[in-house]
């Protein structure tokens, strides 16, 4: 990887126009586009994203329901007959109600209702928006912070590196889930207020920031390692010798080279973040009601697991497909950018 990119560095410095064949980015893109499995996964992800974006359309124009307000007395139509959404429980004492199961009719409770009588299919789409948003935003946050930390620690070395590395060690030694859970529990009720920086509780920002922060060491460590090795390279020495400022060396010599590390890790981080979000929401310390995410819907379905398993099954399947697609795509991106698999992180 590094040789190809170093050549590109020289090319940009000398000002040679980059032909499509010479640029390592173009080569990587071509390799990725040729990877059929990865492209299928891109298609799957695009489809999931489109479906989730279409959530309001589905709720308003197809299912005609409001997936955020309970509908305990509502009725719906199954096979031409009007039935209760919350049906009397069969067997036992006949007390209590069970939400309607999947009708497999797109217009009427396709995947059934949850224990509030809300349409699970519509909630699944709305929940997907939040899960994807949190996953992507948290991964972005992680990558930005980690790149900064890795660059600073790796490039300046000495005390700066020592401080950052110890800090990363401490967060690293903290089991991720425990850290995320601890932060969520504490901040859930009151939010965080650090001077002008305010983090309202009950918003999506809270899980995004928490998940984004706990995974910083996972990206910062490889970035720092890469920066350390880049610092010793001839082209950085050359730039130093030419009298380039530190900022300029970081920006135009080091950053373009470490950015591949971050790009390779990015899809994997989204995958991990979606899983983490679902875990936090499942423990009811992630996305807060009335908002939904795939994790909260699994949590909703937990009480109905043996009677109406679709409520919990459907979001789990959605998570599994999305995360699998991201993982496979991540493999493809790594193979494309890093054909000799130097960054075999997992």
């Amino acid at each position, binding site marked *: 990887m590094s040789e190809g990119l170093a050549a590109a560095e020289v090319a940009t410095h000398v000002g040679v126009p980059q032909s499509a064949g010479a640029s390592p980015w173009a080569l990587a893109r071509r390799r990725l586009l040729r990877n059929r499995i990865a492209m299928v996964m891109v298609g799957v992800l695009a489809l999931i994203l489109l479906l989730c974006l279409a959530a309001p359309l589905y709720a308003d124009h197809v299912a005609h329901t409001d997936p955020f307000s309970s509908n305990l007395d509502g009725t719906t139509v199954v096979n031409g007959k009007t039935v209760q959404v919350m049906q009397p429980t069969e067997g036992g004492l006949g007390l209590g109600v069970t939400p309607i199961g999947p009708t497999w009719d797109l217009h009427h409770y396709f995947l059934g209702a949850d224990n509030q009588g809300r349409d699970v299919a519509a909630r699944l789409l709305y929940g997907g928006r939040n899960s994807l948003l949190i996953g992507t935003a948290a991964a972005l946050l992680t990558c930005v912070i980690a790149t900064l930390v890795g660059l600073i620690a790796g490039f300046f070395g000495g005390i700066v590196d020592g401080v950052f590395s110890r800090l990363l060690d401490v967060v690293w030694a903290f089991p991720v889930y425990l850290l995320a859970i601890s932060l969520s529990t504490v901040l859930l009720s009151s939010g965080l*207020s650090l001077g002008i920086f305010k983090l309202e509780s009950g918003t999506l920002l809270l899980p995004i920031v928490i998940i984004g922060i706990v995974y910083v060491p996972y990206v910062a460590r490889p970035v720092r390692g890469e920066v350390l090795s880049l610092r010793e390279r001839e082209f950085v020495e050359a730039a130093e010798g030419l009298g380039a400022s530190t900022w300029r060396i970081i920006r135009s010599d080091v950053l373009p080279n470490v950015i591949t590390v971050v790009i390779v890790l990015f899809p994997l981080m989204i995958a991990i973040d979606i899983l983490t979000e679902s875990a936090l929401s499942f423990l009811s310390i992630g996305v807060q009601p009335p908002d939904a995410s795939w994790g909260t819907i699994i949590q909703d379905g937990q009480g109905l697991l043996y009677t109406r398993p679709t409520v919990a099954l459907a979001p789990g399947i959605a998570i599994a497909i999305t995360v699998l697609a991201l*993982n496979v795509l991540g493999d493809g991106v790594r193979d494309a950018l890093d054909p000799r698999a130097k960054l075999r992180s997992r």
Partner: protein
Amino acid sequence: MLRFFARRFVSMLLVMFSISVLVFLIFFATPGVDPAARIAGRNADQETLKAVRHDFGLDRPMPVQYALMMKKLFISRDLTSFVNRGAKVVPQVIQAAPVTLSLVLGAAVIWVLISIAMGLLAAVFRGTPVDAGLMILGLIGISMPVFWVGEVVNLLSQSRFHDTFLFSWVPPLGYVPLTQSPIGWFKALLLPWITLALLYIGIYARVLRSSLIEAQEQDYVRTARAKGLTEKRVLLRHSLRTSLIVFVSLFGLDFGALVGGGALLTEVVFGLHGVGWLTYQSLQNLDLPVIMATVMYAAFFVVLANAVVDLVYAYLDPRVRTV
């Protein structure tokens, strides 16, 4: 070597200390968070708040609070819960430890054996559909939320197929101590083991496969081949042995994190009252001393695992010692 040991030990203590400070700060000093308000309830008046603060020692300076808590946790070991007043924390953790250890040990055996088999197969059949299939299978395992897999397992084994020969042997959710009934212990834990192992098999098989492939191209493997050894012997005796170094170090870290309570979600879904479950419970009612104890317990195992892995590395590779 001795100096390396000493340095490693000191840095271990430092990391543990930093973690304890971090946890303490998260729960006691996060701006806008008042533990007393949590204990006293939502609508407590100022008087009650003040009384609670005094009662729990929350009106003392932060460093004093921290030192007191650490002393109670590690020296006098009589730290008591905020929620169930009078309930000692340390015995609770000690009671929960065997449950977690049972869960993690069994799962580890399953994931290590299966992932070694999968990694070897994939490396041998490198580039064929067998390789691709195994790797996709592994990826599917790590792409499913573990608590959801647990729920699906419960749905099948406790409800849908519980009356069939498949799962009629499955006992109700919960833990059976090994000393009470070894067979009951095994039956109660088999499905949780498999669920937890699923999460790791894929990663480990991938790691092993790629180090095997790397090792197959090394000089010593070429030498072994040139000596006329069979391919099987080369693979198992030469390549696998060195490839296991990365595998073992990864295992150390994961095992440490899990024993420390990282298997929280599996424990919650299967109703196993281990350390992770204890953490979860204490987080639910914000029982700070219990959280402090369980998180320190977890950190201890992670840090210990880190140190052991480093030492093993140093033993295997002398170059590390001088760093």
